């Protein structure tokens, strides 16, 4: 059985985007991307909200784009090979292979996916995370804390949910991004 891990880039004041919902600052550098790629060897499926999925589609087919770094190509390979579940009501045809669309967030399906998976399942998207946290399905939280304060936006930790956590790893990068990993104490 895999673990369900909620992982995103987060501002130092705890938001995944700015008040205008932009998140241009949440752009991992090569060192961070290589670290994430390494971690993703243990990930067997991604759960995405539509907004983050659409940003991530930039990583599809990078092999056809010349002149990028090895880190970019390796991340693209891993990303393309991993099954994706996208929760959306507005997207009819996903532009990437290996992609399953869902119009509803079904906690039983997510639970079954996690229980049948040998590898971990990651969640990127605050709405899916809220549903999974409320259902007690989230085992780990991984925040890549970016050295910026946005002053508002969508909170990474859903409002109204108190959680006891256990720090499992803290790692800082040259760019000033800090990865904090927690196990959720149920």
């Amino acid at each position: 059985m895999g673990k369900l891990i909620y992982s995103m880039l987060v501002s130092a004041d705890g938001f995944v985007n700015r008040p205008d919902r932009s998140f241009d600052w949440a752009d991992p550098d090569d060192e961070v991307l290589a670290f994430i790629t390494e971690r993703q060897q243990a990930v067997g499926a991604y759960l995405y909200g539509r907004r983050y999925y659409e940003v991530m589609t930039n990583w599809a087919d990078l092999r056809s784009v010349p002149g990028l770094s090895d880190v970019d190509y390796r991340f693209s390979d891993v990303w393309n090979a991993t099954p994706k579940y996208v929760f959306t009501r507005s997207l009819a045809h996903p532009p990437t292979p290996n992609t399953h669309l869902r119009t509803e967030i079904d906690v039983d399906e997510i639970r079954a996916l996690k229980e049948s998976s040998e590898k971990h399942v990651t969640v990127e998207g605050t709405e899916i995370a809220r549903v999974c946290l409320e259902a007690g399905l989230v085992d780990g939280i991984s925040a890549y804390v970016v050295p910026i304060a946005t002053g508002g936006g969508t909170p990474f930790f859903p409002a109204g949910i108190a959680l006891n956590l256990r720090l499992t790893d803290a790692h800082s990068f040259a760019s000033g991004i800090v990865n904090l990993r927690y196990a959720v104490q149920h």
Partner: protein
Amino acid sequence: MGTLIYLMVTSADGFTSSPDGTFDWAEPTTAVHEHVERFTRTLSGQIYGPRMWETMKVWHDIRPGDGGDYGELADVMYEYGETWRSIPTHVFNRQEGHPLTGEGIRELKAASGGMLSIGGPGIAAVALREGAVDEVARYVVPHATGGGTPWWPVGLDADLELVEEESIDAGWVYLRYRVGV
């Protein structure tokens, strides 16, 4: 000209207290207390708002021979009390007609040769909005409150530069940033 650092204990989701105003999850372990004591020793002054002052002023009385009024405490508590009392303290209180102003904070910095700390979040927001805070340091506690008082002022954006990251004890992580770089 001194520098100003905003130091705060925060939840993992960035709050200084739970929605009901409590912060029992922010009880430091001995190792965390030692870390705070070492930090406090580097200060030349401390600036508090009224609520933070209410929390901190107990350190006036925690000293060897206090008659056990505060129970049996670790040695570091007495050391911290001694260090804390040795640092000049400035308390501001808007309700009592003594608010922190931009001018006030600049005067304090100009008169200081070292590092001043400021807290809690309300008074720090005044200084942050004035552009007077040079560094922010945050103890991140492994607990999410789901709401409460945000450690960082709502509506204020800033670029930060990480200068220190340290895992201390019991899952507490210390993050220190330079502001506005």
